[in-house]
C-alpha cells in the first residue's frame, strides 16, 4: 500500500486561514472553581458515605460499607422503585401532553412558531414554588376543580392532593417545556414532504405518523424523555408539597437524613447509590444525544 501518497495535497494554503484562538488559561478560573466547589463536595460525599455515625451529628472517618448494606433494605428499595416509577409515569404524562403540542407548532404554525415556543417557556420563568403552590390551590379537595369534577359526576370524591396523582401532575406541569423543546427541534428538522408522499401513496395519516414521523423524531423524543426523566427522579420539592410529605422520593429521603435524622453517612451513601443509578440513564442520554447530532447534520 502506498499510504504516503494519500495525504492532504498541500498544507501551506491551510495555514493562511487561521482561526483566532482564545488562550487556554481562560478556562482556568472556572476549572479551579469546579474543582473546589463541585468536585470537592462530591469527593467529601464519597468520604462520608463510607464513614460511620459516631453519636448524634458526629462522624468517625472509617472505610466501611455498612451504610450501603443498610440501603439493601425492602424499605429503601421500595423508595427507589417508587421514585423510578413515578418519574416514568410523569415522563409518560409529559410526552402525552407535550408531543401533540410540539407537533402542532411544527406542522400547523407558520408565522407564530417562535411566539408559541416562547409562550411555553414564559410560565417556566416565574417562581417554581409559587406555581406549585397554585397547583395545590387548584387540586384542593374543597376547591373549584373538585366541585366541578363532583358536579359532572366523573368522580364522586375528588381526592387528588397528597397522592401520587398530584405528584405526577406537578411533575408533568413543571417539566413540560423541557420535553417540548427537543421534540419540536427534531420535528423542525424533519422533511414534511415524506409524510405528504406517504399519504399520496395511500397511507392513512395515522400510518404515516407511525411509520415516518415517529421514527424520524424518536431521537428527539428520547432526548426529551431523558431530559425530563433524570431531574424528575431527583425531584425534592414537588413530592414534599403535592405529596404532603408522605410520598417519599429518593431525594426527600436523602434530604431528611441531613435535615431531620442527622444521619449524614447514611444520607451520603444513599446519594452516591442514587447517582450511580442515574448515571445509567445519563449514558443512554449521551448515546442518543450524539446520535441525534449525526442525524440532524
Amino acid at each position, binding site marked *: 500500500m502506498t499510504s504516503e501518497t494519500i495525504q492532504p495535497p498541500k498544507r501551506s494554503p491551510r495555514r493562511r486561514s*487561521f*482561526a*483566532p*484562538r*482564545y488562550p*487556554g*488559561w481562560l*478556562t482556568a*478560573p*472556572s476549572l479551579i*472553581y*469546579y474543582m473546589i*466547589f*463541585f468536585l*470537592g*463536595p462530591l469527593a*467529601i*460525599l464519597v468520604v462520608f458515605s463510607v464513614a460511620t455515625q459516631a453519636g448524634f451529628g458526629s462522624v468517625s472517618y472509617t472505610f466501611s460499607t455498612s451504610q450501603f448494606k443498610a440501603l439493601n433494605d425492602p424499605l429503601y428499595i421500595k423508595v427507589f422503585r417508587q421514585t423510578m416509577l413515578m418519574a416514568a409515569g410523569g415522563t409518560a404524562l409529559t410526552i402525552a401532553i407535550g408531543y*401533540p*403540542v410540539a407537533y402542532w*407548532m411544527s*406542522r*400547523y404554525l407558520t408565522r407564530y412558531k417562535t411566539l408559541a415556543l416562547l409562550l*411555553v417557556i*414564559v*410560565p417556566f*420563568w416565574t*417562581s417554581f*414554588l*409559587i*406555581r*406549585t*403552590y*397554585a397547583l395545590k390551590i387548584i387540586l384542593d379537595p*374543597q*376547591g*373549584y376543580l373538585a366541585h366541578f369534577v363532583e358536579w359532572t359526576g366523573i368522580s364522586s370524591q375528588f381526592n387528588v392532593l397528597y397522592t401520587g396523582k398530584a405528584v405526577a401532575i406537578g411533575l408533568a*406541569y413543571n417539566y*413540560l417545556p*423541557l420535553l417540548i*423543546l*427537543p421534540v*419540536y*427541534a427534531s420535528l423542525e428538522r424533519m422533511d414534511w414532504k415524506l409524510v405528504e408522499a406517504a399519504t*399520496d401513496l395511500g397511507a392513512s*395519516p395515522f400510518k404515516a405518523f407511525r411509520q415516518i414521523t415517529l421514527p424520524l423524531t424518536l431521537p428527539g423524543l428520547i432526548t426529551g424523555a431523558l431530559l425530563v426523566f*433524570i*431531574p424528575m427522579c*431527583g425531584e*425534592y420539592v414537588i413530592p414534599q*408539597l403535592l405529596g404532603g410529605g408522605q410520598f417519599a422520593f429518593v431525594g426527600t429521603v*436523602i*434530604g431528611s437524613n*441531613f*435535615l431531620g435524622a442527622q444521619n449524614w453517612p447514611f444520607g*451520603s451513601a444513599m*446519594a452516591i447509590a442514587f*447517582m450511580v443509578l*442515574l448515571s445509567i440513564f*445519563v449514558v443512554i442520554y449521551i448515546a442518543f444525544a450524539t446520535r441525534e447530532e449525526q442525524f440532524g447534520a
Partner: protein
Amino acid sequence: MPSAGTPRRSRHRFGKRMFTGWAVLVYLVLYLPIVVVVIFAFNQPTSVPQGASPCSVDPSRMGNVTVWNGGTTCWFHTALNDPTYVPAVKTSFWIAFRASLIATVLGTAAALSLARMKKRWRVPFDVLVYLTLVVPEIVIAVASLIFFVQAHNNLSIFPTLGESTILLGQIVFSASLVMLIVRARFVGMGSSLEEASFDLGGGPIATFRQVTLPRLLPAVIAGALLSFTFSFDDYVLPAFTNGTVNTWPIVVYSAVRFGVTPAVNALATVMLVVTVTLILITGLVLRRSGASDLTGAPPPTIP
C-alpha cells in the same frame, strides 16, 4: 402540489382543529396556576370580625383561603410591610445578582477558550460541565452542606453557612448554564469576521472588544438573565446551605407547607410583574441575537 381530494383536505382540516384545540387547552393549563395566584392575592379570610381589616386576621384563624371569600387589596400592604418577606426577597436578589455576575464572567471566559480548543482538552472539560448540569440538585445540596461545614471547621477562610455558601454553591450550575449559551452563539458566529479583523491588523484585544464581544453580547446577557432567574428561584441548594439566612423561596416554601396567607400571593404577584418585565427584555435581546441560535442548543436543565 397535486390537487388533494376533498376527503383528505377535510381530514387535514379536522386534524388541524384537533391539534389546535389540544394546544390551546395545554396553554390554558400552563397559565392557569399563574392566574390563580394573582386572583387569590385579592382573597379574604373565611370570616372577618366586624370592623376589622381582613388582613389582620391571625393566620391560624384564616379558614379556607383556597376558595373565594370576597375581595380586598390589603394583602399588598401587608406583604410589603412583613418583617420577613421583603428582606428575604432582597437577600435572594443580591445573591442572584452576584451569582449571575460571577457566573457570567467565568462562563464566558471558558466558552471563548473552549469553542476552539483541541478536542483532547475540550472533551474532559465538557464532561465536567455536563456533570454539573446532570447531577441531581439534591445530591449537590447535601454534598455542599457537608463540604462547607467541614471546610469551615478545618480552614477558617471558608465562610460559615449563610449567604456566601448559597452564592458559592449556585455559581457552579450558573457558570455551566452561561457557558452553554455563550458557546452555542460563539460557535454559530463563525470566525470569518475575527479573521478579517486580524488581517486588517487588529490585535487580539482590539478584535475581542470591537468584533467578538459586540456580537456575543446578546448571548452573554441572555445567559446572565437565565442564571439570575435560576439563582433567584432556587430552593433546594439554599435549603441546605443557608444556615439561618432566609431567601424568598425558603420563605415561600415554609409558608406553603405550614399555612399560606394571601400576602404570599400578593408579593408573588408584585414579583410576577417584575419577572414579566425581565422576560420581555430578554425576549427583545434574544430577538436581536436571533433566537434560532439558542433553540438549536441543548436546552438547559433547570430543575
